[in-house]
C-alpha cells in the first residue's frame, strides 16, 4: 500500500469516527467534549468556538442552528466539500485536478479578512453581534 493510500485510509477512518461521535453525542449536555483553551484562558470566543455544536447541528441538517453556533463553519463547508471531492477524485481516478480557487490571491486574503472580522465582531458587546457569539 502506498503512502498516499495509507493517508487516505487514515483520514477516512478519522472523519468517519468523528462523524459518528458528533452525530450520536450532542456537545450540549455531554461534558467529555473538550472546551476551547483560548476561551478557558481569556473568556473570549476564538474563531473556532462553537464549532463542535455547529458540527452536531450540521450532521442533523440544521444549517441555521449551526450558523448560530459558528458562522464560519457553515460558510467554509462548500469549500471543504469541494476540496475533499477533488482530493478523493485525484487519488481514485489517478487524475491531477487542481483546486484553483484556493490558489487565487484574492481568495486567501478574503478568508483572512473573514476570520479576523468574525473573531472581533463575535466578541463585541453590542446586541447586533450577539448572534455571532458561540
Amino acid at each position: 500500500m502506498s503512502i498516499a493510500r495509507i493517508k487516505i485510509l487514515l483520514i477516512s477512518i478519522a472523519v468517519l469516527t468523528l462523524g459518528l461521535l458528533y452525530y450520536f453525542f450532542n456537545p450540549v449536555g455531554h461534558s467529555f467534549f473538550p472546551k476551547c483553551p483560548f476561551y478557558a484562558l481569556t473568556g473570549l470566543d476564538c474563531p473556532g468556538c462553537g464549532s463542535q455544536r455547529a458540527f452536531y447541528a450540521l450532521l442533523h441538517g440544521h444549517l441555521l442552528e449551526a450558523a448560530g453556533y459558528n458562522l464560519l463553519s457553515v460558510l467554509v463547508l462548500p469549500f471543504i466539500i469541494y476540496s475533499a471531492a477533488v482530493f478523493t477524485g485525484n487519488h481514485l481516478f489517478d487524475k491531477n485536478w487542481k483546486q484553483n480557487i484556493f490558489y487565487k490571491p484574492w481568495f486567501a486574503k478574503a478568508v483572512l479578512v473573514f476570520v479576523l472580522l468574525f473573531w472581533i465582531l463575535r466578541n463585541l458587546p453590542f446586541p447586533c453581534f450577539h448572534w455571532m457569539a458561540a
Partner: protein
Amino acid sequence: MEQVMYPQSGGTPPVRPKNYLVESILVTIFCCLPFGIPGIVFASQVNSKYDAGDYAGAEKASKEAKTWTLVSFIIGIAAVIIWIIIAFTTTFFSAMFHHNFHP
C-alpha cells in the same frame, strides 16, 4: 538574505508550491485554537508571491504555512488528550469517593 532568481520570461516557472490554505482553515475552525491564523497569512503569501514571480518567496511561505498548520494541529490534539485525561480522572475519583460507587 540570499534570493534565488528564476528567469521571468522564457522557460517554464517552477511548480506552484502547496499553500496549505484548506488545512489552515480546518485547524482554525475545528481545533479550537487561533494558531491556524498565521497559516492562513502564509497561505495568502504563497499565492501572491508566486503570481508576482517571486518563486523562492512563495516556496518559503509554503514551508511556513506547513509548520504553522502542523504546530496548531499538534497543539490541538495535545489539548484534547489532556482534556480527556483530566475529565476521566476527575470523574473516576469523584465516583470513587462517592457513597453510591459500585464498580
